[in-house]
């Protein structure tokens, strides 16, 4: 196992290097450079353009620029942005990261949850009306033109019904007087959600052990979880941050719902296919033969074993969350990493575009690695140690 892990880490480093080189040279292959913006104003003399090139290192041959970039990269320096000169690339990425993470991880987790739950149900009730209905609805949203769906939802829920905010990730009139910048609040939200999730998981795990789930145990689990959640809210409220967190949450609703509507079908169909295979397995039939309730057979026997491909898909999509989503960010005025990447590429801001791509790439590579490891953890039939494992 250790040998396998080390081998995979080695592969990751090589892949990362190739990836950086590809990204770097592809971006460099774009026509022109950022000094071309000076061509839009004839009052800017040629000397100023040459100075800018010199300042940004663009007067050096591409290979020298690349080697310098690689050297800096492996010392943790992504350079300075050309279009926001002289702001460090890291600074820009870290500024956008919290709000990108909060939005896209929430949306991915929710769409995974909805997809998983629905996929489980419709596979179990294959051919029933709920199967057809969920599949048609899911496919309809999946194939919908995303910007149009966003506009419809904004128009309906924000503009016409006025239930939700029209746009942006915070309400400026509230935040003018806020004692913290929004990124601090986002940071606390990420931290708080992580702590609460771990606590709830620990509660559910410790109370879920054993063969029987009694009503009392379930009640206790819910009560404790609610207590943890309430404690979290209490801490936020006592710090005066709750109103700002709530503002962020209400701004998240529309983009998260839109993303969920668009994406849940993918997980649902994956889960459905996977589960259709497992329900045919002998152990599921055996469980039924034992007279276990339908829900138990479905959830604890069939669904758990069908989970593997969907978990892989979740892990990869969570990593992809780092790159944000240009359309979502634009339609909902939620500036995240997707826009950074888009605008920097348009502006020939190589360090920023490369930084954003490499940053995402690293997370995706790690996610692949984690997915591989999860396979082994979730499915005892898979072993990376080279030793044969008995099936069934």
């Amino acid at each position, binding site marked *: 196992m250790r040998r396998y892990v080390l081998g995979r880490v080695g592969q990751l480093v090589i892949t990362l290097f190739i990836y950086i080189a590809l990204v770097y040279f592809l971006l460099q292959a*774009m*026509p*022109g450079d950022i000094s*071309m913006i*000076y*061509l839009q*104003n*004839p*009052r*800017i*003399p*040629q*000397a*100023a*353009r040459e*100075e800018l090139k010199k*300042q940004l290192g663009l007067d050096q041959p591409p290979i020298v620029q690349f080697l310098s970039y690689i050297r800096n990269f492996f010392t943790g320096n992504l350079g*300075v942005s*050309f*279009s*926001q*000169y*002289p*702001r460090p690339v890291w600074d820009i990425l870290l*500024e*956008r990261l919290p*709000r990108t993470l909060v939005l896209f991880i929430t949306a991915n987790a929710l769409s995974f949850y909805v997809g998983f739950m629905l996929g489980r149900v419709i596979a179990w009730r294959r051919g029933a009306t709920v199967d057809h209905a969920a599949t048609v609805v899911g496919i309809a949203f999946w194939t919908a033109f995303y910007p149009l769906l966003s506009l419809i939802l*904004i*128009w309906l829920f*924000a*503009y016409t019904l006025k*239930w*939700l*905010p*029209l*746009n*942006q990730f*915070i*309400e*400026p*009139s*509230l*935040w*003018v007087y806020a004692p913290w*910048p*929004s990124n601090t609040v986002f940071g606390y939200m990420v931290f708080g959600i992580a702590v609460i999730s771990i606590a709830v998981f620990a509660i559910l795990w410790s109370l879920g052990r054993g063969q029987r789930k009694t009503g009392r145990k379930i009640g206790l689990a819910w009560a404790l979880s609610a207590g943890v959640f309430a404690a979290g809210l209490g801490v936020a409220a006592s710090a005066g941050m709750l*109103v700002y967190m*709530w*503002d962020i949450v*209400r701004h998240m*609703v529309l983009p998260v719902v839109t993303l969920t509507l668009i994406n849940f079908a993918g997980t649902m169909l994956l889960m459905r296919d996977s589960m259709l295979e497992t329900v045919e397995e002998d152990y599921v039939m055996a469980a039924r033969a034992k007279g276990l309730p339908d829900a138990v057979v479905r959830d604890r026997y069939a669904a758990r074993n069908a989970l593997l491909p969907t978990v892989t898909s979740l892990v990869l999509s969570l990593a992809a969350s780092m790159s944000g989503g240009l359309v979502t*960010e*634009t*339609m*909902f*005025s*939620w*500036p995240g990493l997707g826009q950074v990447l888009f*605008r920097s590429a348009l502006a*020939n801001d190589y360090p920023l575009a490369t930084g954003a791509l490499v940053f995402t790439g690293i997370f995706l590579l790690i996610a692949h690695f984690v997915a591989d490891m999860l396979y082994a953890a979730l499915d005892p039939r898979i072993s990376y140690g080279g030793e044969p494992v008995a099936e069934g």
Partner: protein
Amino acid sequence: MKVVRYSMTVLLFVAVVFCMGIIGQAAAGGVYEMAIFEDPTTVNVWAALGPDATVWNSFVGYQQSYIGLYGNAAPDYVFCPQAASGMPSRLVEEKMDNKTYYTSVVNIRKELRWSDGKPMTADDVVFSYMAPLALDPNKLGGNWPGNIDPEILAKVEKAGDYSVKFYLTELPGLAQWQYGMLQALILPKAYWDPVVSKALKAADPIKELLAHDPKGEPVAGPWMMERWEKGAFVTHTRNPYYAMTGDTNTFYKNGAFVTENKKTGFRYILGNPIGDIKLAVTEGPYANRLMFRILQNQNAAVLSLISGEVDFILNSLGLQRGFQDQLKKAASVEVVENNVNGFRYMAFNLTKYPFNIKEFRQAVSVLIDREYICERVLQGVAFPQYSVVPPGNAYWFNPNVPMWGKGFTRSQKITEAVRLLKSAGFSWEVEPQVDLAKDRVLRRGRGLIMPNGKKMPSFEFNVMTAGYDPLRYTFGLNIATWMQEVGIPVEVVPTEFNVVISKTDERDFDCFMLGWSLGLYPDHMYWFFHSSQCPAGGFNYEMYSNPDFDKMVEEFLREADMETARRMAFRLQEILADELPYIVIFDTPLIEAYRSDRLAFPYTKTLSGIQYSGGMTSTVKLKN
């Protein structure tokens, strides 16, 4: 039990929906809210005028908070004093240390204060010119070399507490002096001097200076930056010491202009202020706060405007035509349309044969039916243009420039183009034929033979892709079709913007279509058409070279008298309209919209729209 559970779920949903609406009502009165489409990248004025010179940085930054010695009073854009108390003294020749200088003295208004209450003095003005010179304006980049031209400005000295003296190495023209140096922004010395001094000692002074995050920087303009929540909004509050509050700019119908402030006693008069008054604008600001909401797309901005979340959409490109009808139908929303100061044009590589033949270009210009495309194809989205100075820039625009083919029918255009080409020695294997009476093309031209007897090879016409600019793409396709009709073997190549820029910069093209946004003073005629700009890196992409024109445009650039410069500009436009190094084709009007129940602008008809004055934040009145 189930009923209870469902009831609880419904109740919870209603409660959540109710709570969702609790926060986030529009801001209270006194706040002028604008939608902008991009985050600023810096609030450091050195960076915002330098390498980070974006329109968004200007809108939320120095345009609201800084003043110069002089400015241009909208809507007529009259050159007038801001921090100065009158016009600069006439430039006189002075000898110092065996060098000849041209010097001028500018006096400063004594009532000016920084936002920390301290007076603005000659020291601040001297610093504002000498610090960039010490750092080298070319290295600062962006607008700096245009504002503080190191080729001309030798130094600025303090001539008194409220008086400064400029030393120039040569006599400047209007573009360099009135429309350049004298409009540079004045920076607070007390704040920036230590920062600049520290930067000058650093290994990379420019990087050090541009990286500075200005906190608590005093300003002299109407607004002080209050908060920048990155990605969401920027707010400004009123500068309590803004000394120009109460300045009334009066524009007379006879062209005279007066600035007067009854409270401070300041008075400046240009021309003879008698007769009817065209417009009087009194400086505020009248709002208590500015809020720039950063919305990332026009749909969001339009919905926000209609629903009253913002009062005005501030965008240098205006709004897309598609939103105009929606906005016109909305209650309390006013849509305004203004001419812009720019044009889109096509140009040939004049170092290549036969593009260097004047009649060839004239024939192409005749063939282009600008009115047809603008009115029939594009349904009024664009308007035709013929001159390198747009009609919107009324003072400098020559209305009598030749307009090739205007008002001609298709067959008349072809007939005229054929006549022009024949007069230059062109012939055809198959000559185009038209029926003038029925306005029909009977035969398309084929095999155009150049005056040197060779058949004209096909050439590329680089136009923007439809995705980047559908208007230029449409024009490009139509122009190519009309050229092909008379046998000109053109091939349209939809090209990405950056590629076109790259090709023109490297002079590697046959023919292209691009556009320009212009400054008020038409010195672009020098930059775009003077032969010194022909080599790669210059702005004479088409490589037009005409010694007579060069001489005249050089004189124009040096001219310091407005009336004489205007006469020269008219003559230059006539030459260019005849020689056609640029075939000017069209431009688009700027469409803007605002809440008429919230805002009262002193005027809305102005060149390049309300956005050109940064949203008129210091003159707009709030209705509630």
